[in-house]
């Protein structure tokens, strides 16, 4: 086949998706070249499997196996060669556990550790098995192991939700128990002081059985009844307290775990498989929530003695569901809805958006296994995940919804975000891509999920509406690889036909992600090695070509087969159009995340231009004002002049001087008065106290100049300044003026 014919055949495939000419083969069994080193995940150290623990006060409910092994080694293995053997054995054991989890073996970490220790120890010989069992003692925690599979996101989120639920239950029970005890104390105190509490039987019961026969309780009853003050609880108050107590004891949101079998009310269920069931449950329980919040409010007021029927009775009569706010709803458990892959479009989940926008305390996990779903409008264009990939972006626009979108492979890295989402007071949406339903060449779910994020098909981002007042504070997508680039690039090492080492930096695009799903193999055509030509350009570069140039070239991807031999596969136009649209959406996401933000760049350019113009103007002005020093250029002179101007501007102004006073008028430095009562004892109408109990001069006519001078002399801090006499007829003024002189 000559070159022209080959190009026509390639172009025909790219344009039409049909392999008509010879030489173009199917791309079955091929995977992106970037995945070549990761075929056997079980042998590679990465975050999975996870260990889900239940430690109420531990470091968190989710750990990675590799993190735990690292912790054990830090604790047990000495540094240097001495610990090297233990490190190797421990890493071998970790790999064994990972392989078991990868192949579907479930169970507690301690069980898998035991089996792996036996297997690894047998392999290593000597006392390795004992040593590895000893390392288990340094773990200090245990839990279920979870591999990165389709079920993992739901298990992880549900586990974290349960831990949060348990913590909230403890806090609620603490509050509820304290209120119940105090309310019961009020009733008990009322009983003790009541007529019923002073009967002989009640007194006998209060003393206790060992001394029941030692006293004449009838006589005791007569005595205490005669002298003890009565304190009958008003009927309305008693009813209020008993009602609140009954409500708190019978609430089903967090039943008392200490209650005997059969005595505790059955707890409400808060985990659901669809939105309709969760919404129905919330509606059904709303009256109980109102009654519980009301009972708590009444209990707090009663236990503090602040309940005022005149003010509060009317308030509580009108108290209803509209009175509840987000802080009150935070007392109660959140509703967890886990929607399985493929059930997002079910009628039972049709009200998902409505539920999220209503502010209900609901945490929804939407899983998808297909980020490339076809549009329901018909064939022709990829919709690529209208419901799945765009669900999270739509939810961010609702306001008040915490949103986290991530592939399953990235969930462990985002565990703090998950915790923040579960703690968020309001609705939360977790949109997770758990891995392709039909992966190519047996790719592990971890890899296809990672590919979704790598290729920007399902980028990871979070939106926390309470993180701040603007998008910069709320929106975060730093977990995406190379977020400032269109497509992430990684070095790919391979050897050519002459077995020489070559390095390429292919971009990982949306088309590479499509190659991971065998349903879309028809969009690719493998080109034999001897048909490679210069018209073939990498798909990422092809997208950047202008129309005419694009027509002269065909896009390809690098792929590998089962033997890790490198191939080039052509990509058809339809898939490239989808890739282009994916890139457009990625650019939009970048702007939201503050990267290449067009508004910011425009503003920056404008400000930079203005600053440069201003600097030029200042330089011109300085040329005229500052004579240039010998040997210095204009720029140096300007540089030295500017710092001097800045120092002058930063000079601190002096403190304000004391206001001038008329020396003839008596006054007191009130702020320095220590309230010692000396002047008040002389004349409490001449010297008055202000609101802070510091003295000032009141009515001069109420006292004499002699009293003023005596007060000045007795003032411990000498803050009274007598001034001049206001009554010239007062006797002994000459002597008084002399005595007043030191205080003027």
């Amino acid at each position, binding site marked *: 086949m000559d070159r022209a014919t080959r190009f026509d055949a390639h172009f025909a495939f790219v344009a039409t998706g049909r392999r008509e000419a010879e030489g173009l083969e199917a791309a079955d069994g091929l995977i992106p070249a970037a995945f070549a080193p990761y075929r056997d995940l079980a042998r590679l150290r990465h975050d999975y499997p996870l260990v889900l623990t239940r430690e109420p006060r531990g470091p968190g409910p989710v750990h990675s196996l590799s993190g735990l092994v690292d912790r054990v080694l830090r604790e047990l293995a000495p540094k240097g060669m001495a610990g090297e053997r233990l490190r190797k054995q421990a890493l071998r054991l970790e790999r064994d556990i990972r392989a078991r989890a990868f192949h579907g073996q479930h169970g507690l970490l301690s069980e898998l550790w035991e089996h792996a220790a036996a297997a690894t120890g047998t392999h290593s010989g000597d006392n390795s098995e004992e040593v590895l069992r000893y390392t288990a003692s340094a773990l200090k925690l245990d839990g279920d192991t979870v591999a990165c599979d389709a079920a993992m996101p739901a298990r992880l989120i549900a586990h974290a939700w349960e831990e949060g639920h348990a913590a909230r239950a403890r806090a609620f029970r603490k509050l509820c128990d304290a209120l119940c005890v105090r309310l019961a104390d009020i009733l008990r105190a009322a009983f003790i002081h009541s007529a019923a509490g002073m009967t002989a039987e009640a007194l006998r019961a209060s003393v206790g059985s060992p001394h029941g026969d030692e006293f004449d309780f009838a006589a005791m009853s007569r005595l205490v009844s005669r002298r003890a003050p009565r304190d009958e609880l008003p009927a309305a108050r008693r009813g209020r307290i008993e009602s609140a107590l009954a409500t708190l004891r019978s609430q089903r949101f967090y039943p008392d775990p200490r209650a005997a079998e059969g005595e505790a009310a059955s707890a409400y269920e808060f985990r659901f498989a669809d939105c309709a069931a969760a919404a129905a449950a919330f509606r059904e329980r709303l009256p109980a929530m109102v009654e519980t919040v009301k009972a708590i409010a009444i209990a707090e007021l009663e236990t503090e003695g602040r309940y005022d029927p005149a003010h509060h009775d009317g308030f509580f009569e009108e108290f209803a569901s509209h009175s509840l706010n987000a802080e009150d709803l935070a007392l109660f458990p959140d509703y967890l809805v886990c929607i399985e892959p493929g059930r997002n479009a079910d009628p039972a989940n049709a009200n998902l958006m409505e539920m999220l926008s209503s502010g209900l305390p609901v945490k929804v996990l939407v899983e998808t296994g297909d980020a490339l779903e076809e549009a329901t409008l018909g064939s022709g264009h990829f919709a690529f995940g209208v419901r799945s990939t765009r669900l999270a972006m739509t939810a961010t626009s609702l306001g008040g919804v915490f949103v986290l979108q991530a592939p399953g492979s990235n969930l462990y890295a985002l565990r703090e975000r998950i915790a923040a989402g579960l703690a968020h007071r309001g609705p939360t949406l977790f949109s997770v891509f758990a891995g392709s339903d039909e992966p190519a060449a047996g790719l592990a779910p971890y890899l296809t999920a990672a590919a979704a994020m790598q290729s920007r098909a399902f980028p990871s981002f979070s939106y926390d509406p309470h993180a701040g007042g603007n998008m910069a504070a709320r929106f975060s997508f730093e977990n995406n690889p190379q977020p400032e680039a269109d497509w992430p690039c990684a070095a790919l090492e391979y050897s050519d036909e002459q077995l020489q080492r070559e390095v390429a930096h292919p971009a990982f695009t949306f088309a590479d992600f499509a190659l991971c799903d065998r349903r879309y193999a028809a969009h690719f055509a493998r080109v034999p090695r001897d048909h490679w030509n210069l018209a073939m350009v990498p798909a990422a570069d092809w997208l950047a070509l202008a129309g005419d140039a694009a027509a002269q070239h065909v896009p390809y991807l690098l792929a590998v087969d089962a033997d890790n031999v490198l191939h080039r596969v052509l990509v058809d136009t339809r898939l490239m159009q989808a890739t282009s649209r994916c890139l457009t959406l990625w650019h939009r996401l970048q702007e939201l995340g503050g990267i290449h933000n067009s508004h910011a760049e425009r503003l920056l350019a404008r400000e930079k231009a203005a600053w440069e113009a201003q600097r030029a103007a200042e330089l011109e002005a300085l040329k005229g004002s500052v004579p240039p020093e010998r040997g210095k250029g204009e720029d140096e002179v300007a540089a030295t002049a500017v710092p001097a101007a800045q120092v002058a501007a930063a000079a601190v102004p002096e403190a304000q001087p004391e206001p001038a006073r008329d020396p003839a008028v008596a006054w007191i430095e009130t702020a320095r008065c220590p309230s010692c009562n000396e002047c008040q004892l002389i004349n409490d109408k001449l010297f008055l106290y202000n609101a802070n109990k510091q003295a000032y001069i009141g009515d001069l006519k109420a006292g004499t100049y002699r009293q003023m001078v005596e007060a000045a002399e007795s003032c*411990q801090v000498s803050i009274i300044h007598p001034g001049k006499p206001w009554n010239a007829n007062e006797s002994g003024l000459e002597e008084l003026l002399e005595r007043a002189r030191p205080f003027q």
Partner: protein
Amino acid sequence: MTMPVTQCIIKLHEERHDLEDYQGGVPRWCSGCGDNAILTAVQRLCRDENLAPERTVFVSGIGCSSRFPHYMKTYGFHGLHGRAFPVAEGIKMARPELKVFVNTGDGDCCSIGAGHWIHAIRYNMDMVVILHDNHVYGLTKKQASPTSPIGFKSNTTPRGSYLEALNPLTVTLGVQNVSFVAQAVDWVPELLFDIINAAYHHKGFSFIRIIQRCPEFLPKVFEPWLADPAKTLILTHKDGLTLSPETARTYKNQLAHDPADIDRAREIASSEDPIPVGILYRNPDVPCYEEVRHAGAMRTAAQLRAGLDAELDRVTVWPRS
């Protein structure tokens, strides 16, 4: 920002109290006594913070200072000599929500009560401790106290006291778990109030030594400091005190001191001329004993009774049948 329904309701009908509302009995202190200034400053604090009188308690030992609870219209406990701290600690453990203040004197705290004082600092329970230091046993009419200056002639030291005065600040700063130490003087009321206010807002054992005048038995001992503001060194800092322009005009001798620096605090505390006034040390991260030891589960009355019965039954003498 929203708050739960219960808090809305409580705040809706809050009572406000004036300064006079906190005045209990008429003070019987001598006219010119520094205790009056301390009383005024504390009443101002109660008014400004709108402290509920039924949730505030003043605990004292014996001495002029310890008359304080009688003059506050709150709960109070006028206890035994030197034993204010254990009573205050017991109140705080049983009723951690109450605001607890301790009024003690240089004899009550630094002499007979010294053992309780040291360990109260270690416990770091959330309370405000005011040491009314007038350098003399005033109530019992002029005996030397641990803080009396060397050479002070009193009824018990007619030839003058032989020992250097104890410095309560350096002692307090030397005890583990110390979290707040300050010094004030009664003749600068603005700083006196600011320091008591800062002590109130500190979570932990807030120790304030207030150097106060005794016009009856030591009328002139502080005259040099009253006459010359330069002999008072005001400690200022953005995390400590800031002066009003009027006070800054009078007291120009100021030193910037970071309350987080304990070593520097110890150095400053040992100075007696000039007298340092301000917050010497503050560490909000020291845990409070009542929180560390708080029982997890709430005990019902029935559980308490059962526990008591069980303990008492162990030593009960059973009557012969």
